[in-house]
């Protein structure tokens, strides 16, 4: 299969990465060569194979649902791109 310009633009929307025309063309070329390489997997019949979903073969541990860190609001907001002592600030969402 081939990945055309339209598909590249669709993926870039899904990935929330804006690409201009020139970049989209280059990406289409790169992605096509990568997917040609990836499609080697189609040689294999895997209809009877269970997918490997976890390499660590353990069941997830349960723990009590309790608060362990308190008063970390400052820490959480410390790296916020726009300063506001109470909230994360983003462009206006509701008109």
């Amino acid at each position, binding site marked *: 299969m081939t990945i055309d310009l339209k598909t590249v633009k669709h993926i870039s929307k899904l990935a929330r*990465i804006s690409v201009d025309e020139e970049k989209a063309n280059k990406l289409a070329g790169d992605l096509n060569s990568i997917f040609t390489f990836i499609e080697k997997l189609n040689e294999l019949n895997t209809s009877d194979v269970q997918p490997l979903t976890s390499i660590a073969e353990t069941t997830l541990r349960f723990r009590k649902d309790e608060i362990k860190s308190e008063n970390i609001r400052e820490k959480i907001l410390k790296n916020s791109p726009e300063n506001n002592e109470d909230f994360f600030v983003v462009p206006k969402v509701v008109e």
Partner: protein
Amino acid sequence: MTEITDLTLNEIVTNIKKKKISSTEVTKSFVERSEKSKKLNAYITENFSSAIEQAKKFDENPNYELKLPGIPIAVKDLFCTDGIKTTAGSKILNNFIPTYESTVTQNIWDQGGILLGKLNCDEFAMGSSNETSFFGNVQNPIGENLVPGGSSGGSSAAIAANLTPVTIGTDTGGSIRQPASFTGTVGLKPTYGSCSRFGIVAFASSLDQAGPMTKNVKDCATLLEVISTFDKKDSTSIDFKRNNYSSELTKNIKGKKIGIPKEYRVDGMPVEIESLWSKGIEYIKDCGAEIIDISLPHTKYALPTYYIVAPAEASSNLARYDGVKYGFRSLGENLIDMYEKTRSEGFGEEVKRRIMIGTYVLSSGYYDAYYLKAQKVRQLIKKDFDDAYKKVDAILTPSTPSSAFKIAEKTNDPVSMYLNDIFTVPVNLAGLPGISLPAGTDKNGYPLGLQIIGKPFDEQSLLNIAYSMEEKINFKNKITNWWM
């Protein structure tokens, strides 16, 4: 006269414990040498003056019981360090100062280690040559304009150039072992679940592991002992009985069975790699171990599988970089526009390429054809190893299909760059431990490594085999200080 910076970790620790040298002297030596080595571009963030202050404090009140008593250590800039900028080699994290510490680095400081600085790496650990870093490529101390490997390229350059006694990297598809091989140093990727992933900037969570990068096998065992701990903060951390790797280290590997997989004899592999591998087999026989031919039939599907699984996980992990809560933000006309511009300007080309691959293989209508397919093939790759380990204790392969290449040689062809990881990627997919050991040089004198792959949680056997081979190989890295 031998300089302090020429010494191994264990030699420095012994000298500090015997009070022959102080932590301050050691730290100053590494700082001084690092200052003279800026041309290598190994560091992203230097912590030199603070390190010397901490060394002085250690000397005022030394604790010689610790495993890393007053030892300065630079680490890959993928480990979050409390109060010290952590970039993952990306513009998008160029202003990020964590308010917490990764478990692996905390383990190092708890044993007396002192942070010397944060080392360069490929952006979000995506690369095999350190050329995708926002902070520029790193020079390989072996020769000018050679790549140091990647993604832990700053780490491999720093250890080979004696800028730090030991260091740590992370390995998702070969990012510790390939740079170790390119720089004539030792690098170990532990079993998945051995070292906590808490506080490590995530790339592909089912593959990522932290591990030691050192000058020799003994140092590797010492550092692994420090960083490998069970951690409740990582849901995939495994609570198993860890060995005292350094004190249990032995050169006695008599009777061990070592497998040689025929599928690793790939087309176009340089003769030098082939003959290095044959020499490795002879060394193992000399050590008293037994060689057994094995087959890992799905080896050729490992890279295509990896290039579905890793980007898929990356596209999901990197969704958090949206310019809202931390990191770089580009102004937009509205929220969506801000996301798109932030991510477009904040990520480099390779990272964007992989996010796009990941987004595509996970998107509606393609999930079964790509992601599910890859998970099934991953199962087959793991089964290959499970079957092999019924017959052998460990597996010997080359670490890489070539020696270090020139800067800019492969940047225009992503697939040829990906082929670098052909021998290392299967190990991550199967969650196994693997070590790269320097074993010889090519016709240019560039180092070549051999990889030993072990059974899950059997890092001790891996280290023992490497330790006994190391003595036979007697590799000496030729570093000329050309950059000074």
